[in-house]
């Protein structure tokens, strides 16, 4: 018994060590993509923001979602905050850096006790609406007028953060959904970029028959599958489907929705996604693509930076989501206006906070560009991406933005949280069992009716 227990212990220890090593990979997800050119740059514009020169000591809490100091986003944040503190010795910016999920929960808890940090992060439209309705966020119109900040933003982007003509948050990004593909694996299987969704399903089958994993997805997080499904729906119905539902002009039992469910199921049933997709989270799914283990990856263009920082750098190309059953316009995209900075309406130092945020956002695109992380910034970026040493992929995606002819937001940015959750679960279910599309549609409509009285 003693001997066998030793063997057992050794085996267990081995398994544990392996699994720890496997976890370790996950952390490389988004580190270090911008190179090291950040050192010694202090030529940020010296807009001092506010016009008050008070000696009063002020602390501004800045909740953010850039917890890993090695990422370009965190470097950008730290640079601007550092510059501002140097120019304003009486102001201390206290960073509360959390990952996305933690921040969402923390903010909800804080909001329940009316203690929103001076600056926090919210997500567009339906997701930030409860906070606006509860009067927790300060309107930022006056701040946007200062130093011409408003004009730095891309046209229309602020609408996603506006309610009753007041802007309540300023976004850090503006992305669209694309399909990344691994050129090497495509060549190996002898397949071309699919021009239609039906070709895409065929491509999946060909890749599969050659022993190559066609696509990957981290479907434990559920929004990932929904994002892809909504792109199919965008093709079959054209933009504005969810808005029509909310305006009661259409129901989920509309033929376009049923068609989208069927098309989506064709893709799943063709074996597009890796086995066990629903237990794999976003990072793990993305890592499969970034380690060259899969041929295609559907994701928002924000993934560009970390793909360029992985082992498949230089081997990855990108294409627009194709038409479905000949319907839709590939120039219409799933739009992903990014998470956004909002200011607490009950902040003790409202004016100072706004002054700081104004300074922060005015300098944001410039510092982002220097950190080679300016693909998908919500503001206009001056500078030539190719000349600044951005990768071909980044330049290609950046070029794609100019061709965007509208599109739709993700489901959870459009519908209220309760309806969204039911939708996310229903889509996740399609990954594990084939379901009658009409049944899925009905389920959606029931959920919508129950949560929108």
């Amino acid at each position, binding site marked *: 018994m003693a001997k066998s227990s030793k063997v057992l212990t050794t085996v267990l220890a081995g398994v544990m060590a392996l699994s720890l090593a496997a976890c370790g990979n996950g952390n490389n997800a988004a580190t270090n993509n911008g190179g090291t050119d950040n050192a010694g740059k202090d030529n940020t514009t010296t807009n001092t923001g506010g016009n008050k020169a008070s000696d009063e000591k002020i602390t501004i809490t800045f909740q953010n979602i850039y917890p890993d100091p090695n990422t370009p986003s965190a470097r950008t944040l730290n640079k601007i905050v550092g510059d501002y503190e140097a120019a304003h010795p009486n102001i201390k910016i206290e960073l509360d850096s959390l990952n996305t999920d933690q921040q969402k929960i923390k903010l909800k808890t804080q909001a*329940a006790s009316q203690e929103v940090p001076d600056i926090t992060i919210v997500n567009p439209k339906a997701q930030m609406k409860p906070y606006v309705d509860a009067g927790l966020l300060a309107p930022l119109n006056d701040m946007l007028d200062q130093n011409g900040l408003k004009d730095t933003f891309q046209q229309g982007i602020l609408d996603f953060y506006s309610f009753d003509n007041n802007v309540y948050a300023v976004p850090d990004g503006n992305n669209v959904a694309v399909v990344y593909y691994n050129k090497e694996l495509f060549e190996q299987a002898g397949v071309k970029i699919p021009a239609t969704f039906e070709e895409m399903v065929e491509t999946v089958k060909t890749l599969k028959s050659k022993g190559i994993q066609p696509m990957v997805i981290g479907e434990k997080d559920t929004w990932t599958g929904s994002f892809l499904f909504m792109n199919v729906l965008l093709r079959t119905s054209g933009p504005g489907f969810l808005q029509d539902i909310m305006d009661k002009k259409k129901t989920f039992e509309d033929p376009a929705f049923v068609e989208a469910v069927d098309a989506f199921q064709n893709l799943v049933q063709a074996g597009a996604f890796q*086995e066990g997709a*629903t237990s794999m989270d976003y990072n793990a799914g993305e890592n499969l693509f970034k380690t060259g283990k899969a041929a295609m990856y559907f994701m928002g263009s924000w993934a560009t930076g970390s793909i360029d920082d992985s082992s498949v750098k230089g081997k990855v190309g990108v294409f627009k989501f194709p038409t479905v059953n000949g319907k839709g316009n590939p120039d219409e995209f799933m739009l992903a206006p990014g998470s956004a900075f909002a200011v607490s309406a009950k902040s003790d130092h409202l004016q100072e906070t706004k002054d700081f945020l104004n300074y922060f956002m005015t300098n944001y695109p410039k510092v982002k560009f220097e950190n080679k992380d300016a693909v998908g910034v919500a503001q206009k970026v001056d500078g030539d991406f190719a000349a600044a040493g951005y990768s071909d992929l980044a330049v290609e995606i950046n070029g794609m933005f100019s061709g965007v002819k509208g599109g739709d937001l993700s489901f959870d940015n459009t519908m209220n949280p*309760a309806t969204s959750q039911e939708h996310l679960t229903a889509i*996740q279910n399609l990954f*594990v069992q084939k379901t009658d599309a009409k049944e899925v549609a009905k389920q959606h409509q029931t959920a919508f009716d129950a949560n929108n009285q």
Partner: protein
Amino acid sequence: MNVLKVSKATIAVFVLPCLLLYVCLVFVPILVSMYSSTLDWNGIGTSTFIGLDNFKHMFTADPVFWPSVKRTLMFALFSMLEIPLALMLAILLNRYIKRPNFLVSSYFMPVILSVVIIGQLWKTIYNPASMGGMLNQVLITFGLESWTHSWLTEPKVAMYALYFVALWQYLGYHLLIQFTGIQNIPAEIYEAAKIDGADGFKADRYITFPMVVPIFKISVVLAFIGSLQSFDMIMVMTGGGPAHATDVIATHMYNMSFLSMKYGYGSALATFLVVLCLSATILINTLFRRVENKLS
């Protein structure tokens, strides 16, 4: 009390600080969430009082609720299975191993590991063979390909896969508790029994079992209540998915409160869970009182 000659005031001085802390940290939140369970509230904005509507919806209209209750209870039942096993192991360890402490500590190791680590570990073990899952690889090596499953993502098997991880994790815990219980039984009793001809299993039947019952009860209560509240491991491994197939009451509560933003409804689920735990504790205690009376 009179024997100790301690005044009531002294007792109060010693008990109150802890009691107050306990009341503040345990009872007040329970009462607050009971109150929240009567509200239609998203956790942020204004709330409206709706009486018992949340409970009505929970019991009659929520398609996820009853299956999640069933899974929770199954979880509790499965967790009880390992306690006799732990007792057997404890007896064997105590009898046949010279220095059992090392073994007991190594069985105990999963308990002190963070649940997140355990979740990740078992996730990689359970992975489909194409993703390098160890369990499936082993099955294939032995020619049992038809036994392979995508353990965590097939709705029918996912929950059992989770039960098993919990069993694996807490076996050492119950083993330790009962091992300690057995060691506390004086050796003289066994010696006396031996002289009377009671050895081996007979000694267990008439000495170990009756004397270890109070410890056994602790194990049962801990296992039962612990698995009613099981949450973290499920969250790490499946998040309640695929499509609610592994939702238990606690994960459903979390999803409702924080993802669907139905804070009031989430509180109603929490209240139900509290009531369930309390009644389970009372039930188990009553059952054991009978057993103890019978045995002693």
